[in-house]
């Protein structure tokens, strides 16, 4: 059976077939045989070419989490995320103009006003979370188009704070 997964937004096409109690894993032109067993609700044991791997696993909404040999892999299936990547350049430059909260927290201070010109890396706002202040910096040289929050507001991660625009 064929699968397509996104790891760190990079697509991987593979196939996995069951054959006589073992599994055949194929990626590109390479195939490997593996012995895979469920150990407990969050643990899978994989033996591939005599190498033994203990894989920890959990999932949340559209993300699956795997932990292999000291590394975490967050795996999604292609969907909206990929489409937005395919839109490419335009999407990313648009992202740059919308300054979002990097984590859930509280807006402590807005350092700029609408229409104000800003330099790259200038501090636009300060958001506090877990007793720590984080300076939100400008990603571009331009001006402030719109401010969506004010000091004292509680914000969620990814909440738009400030929209910037390039100088005309």
């Amino acid at each position, binding site marked *: *059976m*064929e*699968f*397509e*997964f996104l*790891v760190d937004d990079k697509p*991987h096409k*593979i*196939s*996995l077939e*069951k054959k006589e109690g073992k*599994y055949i*894993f194929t*990626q590109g032109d390479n195939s*490997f045989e*593996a012995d*895979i*067993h*469920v150990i407990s*609700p*969050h643990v*899978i044991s*994989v033996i*591939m070419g005599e*190498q033994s*791997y203990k*894989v*920890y*696993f*959990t*999932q*949340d*909404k*559209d993300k*699956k*989490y*795997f*932990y*292999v*040999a*000291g*590394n*975490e*892999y967050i*795996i999604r*299936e292609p969907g909206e995320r990929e489409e937005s990547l395919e839109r490419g350049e335009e999407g990313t430059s648009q992202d740059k103009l919308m300054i979002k909260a*990097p*984590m*859930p*927290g509280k807006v*402590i*201070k807005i350092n700029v006003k609408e229409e104000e010109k800003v330099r790259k890396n200038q501090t636009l706002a*300060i958001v*506090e*979370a*877990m*007793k*720590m*202040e*984080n300076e939100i910096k400008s990603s571009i040289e331009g001006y402030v188009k719109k401010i969506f929050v004010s000091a004292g507001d509680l914000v969620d991660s990814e909440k738009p704070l400030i929209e910037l625009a390039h100088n005309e």
Partner: protein
Amino acid sequence: MFEKILIANRGEIAVRIMRACQEMDISTIAVYSEADRKSLHVQVADEAWLIGPPPAVESYLDMEKIIEVAHRSGAEAIHPGYGFLAENAAFAKLCEKEKIIFIGPNSKALDLVGDKVRSRLTMEKAGVPIIPGMKTVHKRLSDYDAEARKIGYPLMVKASAGGGGKGMRIVWKPKDLRPSLESGRREAKSAFGDESVYLEKYIEEPRHVEFQVLADNYGNVVHLFERECSIQRRYQKIVEETPSQALNPEQRKKMGDMAKKVIQVSGYNNAGTVEFLLDKDKEFYFLEVNARLQVEHPVTELTSGVDLVHQQLMIAAGEKLSFKQEDIQPRGHSIECRIYAEDPLHNFLPSSGKVLFLKEPQGPGVRHDSGIYSGCDVPIYYDPILAKLIVWAEERDLACQRMVNALDDYVILGIKTTIDFLKEVIRHPQFRAGNTTTDFINKYFGQWKGKEKTEEDMKVALMASAFTDLERTVPTAAGFVEQKNVFSPWLSLGKWRIGGK
């Protein structure tokens, strides 16, 4: 000894204190905010009392409320843990007035050592070396300009009520002074409720070496040797160890004696830590007294064999120290790594959310002081510390290896943590060589891009992912899908469909 005490804290430290109480047959009372109903400390305690909404000022910092719970529940004493009310002299005073024992120093000593500026003066008079800097606090920001010129750049902005790196800023140029003072004040106000800041000469490439001290109510003072805590990010420690690689026996004795002097001069009792900076030439300067149980106290416990929380409780109950300085003979090497809910790839930004899965590390010489469990929420309101991993071994190399292995055996899925990062820190050749200074992280990990992942491991992850999808379509094959009454993520793969064409 007490029969019942209240623990005015949350997270791993509240759990740690409760364990000590259980060992001593003392009933425990937890207090919790609305955000912490399901937190571990609430589950571990004998009694749990709701004290208010999530923001700390309305719950864990609400002195009146906590005192009220202490009275109503019949608690004889309050253990403040670290952070929150731990070094709040007003709270210690209030406890004294209300005839509840504050498990920590007396309010007078707390007042003195809590005021960094006043304690610097006291220490200077007593012949303890201090870092050159301001000896008073100013109200007007403009008054700091002249002080800054006098001390010279680079310099540090520090919170007078300080601790934990909160309110601390390094200033390289005069034009950065004003913004640093402003944000330092704001952070100090938010963390300690006191916005006073002062300036101090910045010591370059220093090591942070501190001494653990115990003092009973009868003037007996013993130190339990040093901890080196030079590995820091944002002036906050993330790796601590003992013994320090920088001290020889002679220097260790000199600093230990000085630490005891600091405690005596301050009229201090209970457990405390005397912090020093050690410069390139191994000159040391008094930094401050941390008037509480420290986050990193376990490394001292593992090498000295003394349980510091037990000692705190016994001292607070009026018992005399049962050992003398010469009885303390540290053995082996201990390292602690702090596990924070933070993203090391994004400037250590806090990462709140749900711990979807937790696998605690195990093995000989491994200790895990934790405030989390599989399924717990990490709220945004409090310090992002999740747990501490501590190892002990006969010597440092083995302790490092043990730590790396334990970190490898430690799995937290669902939120970003410092586990991977810490692994790389402990593995780093300069750490292995003992070349630890407070700029270590900036110097060697400033551009850290995360650990390289091998093709082979990626293959296994993809295979496992395909396996979980594949086996869902063949439910009987593995036999695990049939246990419908048991919660299992294998059963909730509903949103996943088979990819491909």
